[in-house]
């Protein structure tokens, strides 16, 4: 298998090239621009068979994606931040029509104030639109996640749109060594796609997107609930199979030195990589610390998280966005809810950090572990929701 140096954006566009979708409709936005810019070059160079639709906005991009996917095409796109927000009118339509569109999302803070750097507020803002959401720790995972998203989204038990995310600049623009698959291998892996109830199927004519009022709207939401339930096991299955085929196995969550840990960080995205380095260092010194990486945010792996955290004294939930609800960030509220029914549960603290791309350093994580080890000793948290690294 080829080992190459790629940024997160290059890794995602490479995966797109190898998938060779029928249609890509996209509009550029920092820091996701390169994903579709590089892909447009593949189209111009004749390396893919894709119909590339250069639209005038992200609203049009997602609209074109929905149209193409409803016609039976395999469809992909990419965006970030404000772009994802501009798509947001159409995102829930994609899931309601059960269209397995795959989106390369690069996490970036929402305006305002205007900012181009990483936080998770954009992805979190669309978390209830019935899209599968998978976070990547590095460029390798970005590549692997895009391939797996295609497989998960198109699985007959799921048929929902999916987004794989990287962290803006931290992953999207950082060059790393990644292992890719051969083109032919990817072709075999994703296989042929055949849509269900597509509008261009003349033998089986259907109407999509009709008016649906008090009598049927609710019924039409239930298959989505069911598909999201199914998605959990499908994601696990696909992750295991990926491991068997290519040696890199994936699950819904990933525990790192968690088994005998007393204090652990729970996080999403690139911060997990930084945390692993600090965990290794503190383990060297004999401290019982660990990490729980949440790879899949939608569907939310509540039972798995509750089980993974059961034996800890303290779980520190890191949120790179806030819900502004006085109840902590989105990851925190969902983890807390996941723990409600647990017989055994740790003390939990929420650190809201890194908004607008503010760096989270090794030292920051050392200090968080140190603080929370004190909490573990005291058996009681002083402050449940903390805004970390902000000046007063």
């Amino acid at each position, binding site marked *: 298998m080829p080992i190459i140096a790629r940024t997160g954006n290059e890794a995602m566009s490479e995966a797109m090239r190898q998938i060779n979708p029928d249609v890509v409709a996209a509009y550029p936005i920092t820091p996701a621009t390169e994903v579709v810019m590089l892909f447009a070059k593949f189209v111009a160079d004749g390396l893919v068979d894709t119909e590339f639709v250069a639209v005038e906005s992200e609203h049009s991009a997602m609209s074109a994606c929905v149209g193409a996917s409803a016609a039976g095409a395999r469809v992909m796109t990419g965006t970030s931040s404000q772009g994802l927000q501009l798509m947001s009118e159409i995102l829930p339509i994609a899931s309601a029509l059960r269209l397995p569109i795959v989106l390369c999302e690069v996490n970036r803070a929402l305006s305002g104030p205007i900012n181009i750097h990483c936080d998770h507020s954009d992805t979190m803002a669309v978390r209830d639109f019935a899209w599968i959401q998978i976070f990547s720790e590095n460029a390798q995972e970005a590549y692997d996640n895009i391939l797996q998203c295609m497989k998960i989204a198109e699985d007959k038990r799921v048929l929902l749109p999916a987004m794989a995310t990287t962290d803006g600049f931290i992953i999207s623009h950082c060059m790393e060594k990644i292992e890719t698959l051969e083109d032919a291998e990817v072709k075999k892996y994703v296989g042929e796609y055949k849509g269900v109830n597509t509008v261009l199927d003349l033998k089986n*004519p*259907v109407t999509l997107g009709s008016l649906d009022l008090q009598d049927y709207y609710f019924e039409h939401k239930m298959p989505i609930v069911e598909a999201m339930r199914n998605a959990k096991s499908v994601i696990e299955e696909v992750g295991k199979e990926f491991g068997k085929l290519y040696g890199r196995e994936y699950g819904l969550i990933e525990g790192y030195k968690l088994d005998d840990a007393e204090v652990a960080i729970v996080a999403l995205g690139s911060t997990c990589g930084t945390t692993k380095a600090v965990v290794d260092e503190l383990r060297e010194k004999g401290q019982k610390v660990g990490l729980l990486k949440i790879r899949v945010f939608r569907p939310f792996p509540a039972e798995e998280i509750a089980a993974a955290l059961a034996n800890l004294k303290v779980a520190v939930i890191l949120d790179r966005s806030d819900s502004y609800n006085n109840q902590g960030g989105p990851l925190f509220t969902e983890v807390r809810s996941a723990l409600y029914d647990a017989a055994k549960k740790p003390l939990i603290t929420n650190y809201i950090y890194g908004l607008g791309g503010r760096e989270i350093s090794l030292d920051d994580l050392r200090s968080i572990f140190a603080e929370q080890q004190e909490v573990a000793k005291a058996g009681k948290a002083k402050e449940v929701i903390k805004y970390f690294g902000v000046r007063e």
Partner: protein
Amino acid sequence: MKKNMGWKELMHGDAVQAGTAKEFKTGDWRSEKPVFHPEKCINCLFCWVNCPDCAVLLDENKKVVGFDYNLCKGCGICAHECPVKEPKAITMEAERR
């Protein structure tokens, strides 16, 4: 289409079989209605082609015979497109109910 289906009986996605509009009387909120004057009609079928609701009725010889008022929404496109000189073969009149 069966009424009051449960969610497990629905087609995939939000799809419904094509042609279900036939089952609904969607013409009951018209404020104006088209009236056909057969003596003026040259049978060009412009009205039939342009009607967005397939409400222009033809006989077996493909001649216009009138309108399906269960479907006609009174948009007036047929009257507008009718190429005959005024007064046209289709005129719009106030709907009285």
